[in-house]
């Protein structure tokens, strides 16, 4: 109930966007995310998911409509604040990790926010502890396994203490154990989260609510279990539960 009175952490209203080459990716997207919610953004390839993510932290600015983070509109003048409020973890950790050591890389974001000295060290340690990577602080990112790199990539964003954590395909390219470990880490985090994924069981495990983005608009927005139970709907938008997977009705009221 409280959700209806509080100000949403993320408020996307009527966002439309066309790339400079004329290709239109978003056709009026509306989405509200409230504090503490964990939401899955589902949709087929090419639905505009990544484009939408790039709007949340102002890498792209909407052609129409607006994006607000805790009430602050995303626009050129306040990009600096926006980027410290929104933490985006990209799909390929190699895009994100480029410093010589894990520690340097985790420090990069908070450092950009002007944090130095002891506070910086604290943030780095906290973030690395949250993903269970503190023992690897002085290693070079390229010497870590893929799952470890993904965890460090999450830490690089957590160190900025964002209002909302946005994850692009957090379970992709992971072996089953690493996939589960990431799920445990994400489950533990006390943070507002928007997770872009095709991994429907993952959405069910981590997110109470899910939305489907298809052809540049939000076509469904409801409780994850109910959404996945609607076979007709998910099939229509090129989503499928994995072979042999049956929804467990005991999860329904979660």
């Amino acid at each position: 109930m409280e959700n209806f009175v509080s100000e949403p952490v993320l408020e996307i209203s009527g966002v439309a966007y066309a790339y400079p080459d004329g290709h239109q990716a978003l056709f009026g997207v509306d989405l509200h995310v409230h504090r503490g919610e964990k939401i899955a953004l589902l949709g087929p390839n090419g639905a505009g998911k990544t484009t939408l993510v790039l709007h949340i932290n102002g890498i792209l600015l909407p052609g129409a409509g607006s994006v607000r983070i805790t009430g602050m509109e995303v626009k050129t003048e306040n990009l600096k604040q926006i980027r410290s409020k929104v933490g985006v973890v990209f799909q390929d950790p190699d895009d994100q990790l480029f410093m010589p050591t894990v520690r340097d890389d985790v420090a990069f974001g908070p450092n950009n926010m002007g944090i130095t000295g002891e506070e910086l060290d604290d943030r780095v340690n906290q973030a690395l502890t949250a993903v269970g990577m503190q023992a690897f602080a002085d290693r070079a990112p390229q010497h870590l396994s893929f799952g470890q790199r993904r965890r460090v990539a999450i830490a690089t964003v957590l160190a900025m203490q964002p209002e909302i954590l946005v994850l692009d395909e957090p379970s992709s390219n992971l072996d089953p154990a690493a996939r589960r470990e990431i799920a445990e880490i994400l489950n533990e985090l006390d943070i507002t989260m928007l997770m872009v994924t095709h991994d429907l069981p993952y959405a069910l495990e981590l997110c109470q609510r899910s939305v489907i983005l298809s052809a540049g608009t939000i076509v469904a927005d409801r409780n994850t279990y109910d959404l996945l139970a609607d076979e007709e709907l998910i099939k229509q938008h090129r989503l499928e539960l994995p072979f042999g997977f049956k929804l467990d009705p005991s999860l329904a009221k979660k």
Partner: protein
Amino acid sequence: MLLFVLLVVLTPLGNWWLFITYLLIIFTVILIAKLPPLTVIRRMVIEVPFVIFAVLMPFFSAGPYVSVLGMQLSEAGLTAGIGLLFKGTIGVLSSITLASTTPMREVLSGLSRLKVPNMLVEIAAFMVRYVDVVVDEMRRMRIARQSRGYFETGIRSWPVIAKAAGALFIRAYERGERVHLAMLSRGYQGKMPSYQIAIATNQQWLVGMILPISAVVVLILGWRIS
């Protein structure tokens, strides 16, 4: 194109109107090819270091001095500088014309038929193939940096850019190794299939020779007159 550039380079300095004629010829070709002028100008930026060098030459060379606009300039340096400027500009314009009118594959196969060592041609081919991949990787890394509140501002951002460049270099190198492994696993033994394309027809030869022939004509005329 190569012949044309060679002829231009071999033209003795001092015959300035010859060079002006060469310039006019290459401009005509660019006009006929309908290359967008902005693109041509943007690509000419590569010449800037040579221009700086050419401009400096008259100030630092020795020899008899002439007075230009109240400045004492070396005559030999002035000649060499202007010569460099002309030859450089014509050379760059020719390369731009070739690069924008001929598909990369054909340029490569042409190089190979001109007996350029295979290794060099292959390296050039890989560069062409992967330059987009690397540029795209660079772009994604930049977006990831910006997303963590980083703004590129002047000289203070250079250390970060240098580290990113280093990471990019290592990654490009590793990708090279992966590509090589993938090639080996498909039976690569150090020799690429040659880039076969149709041999040029007589008509293509004729069109191709217009530039060098017109340069020869200009050169001979210049000789006669002087």
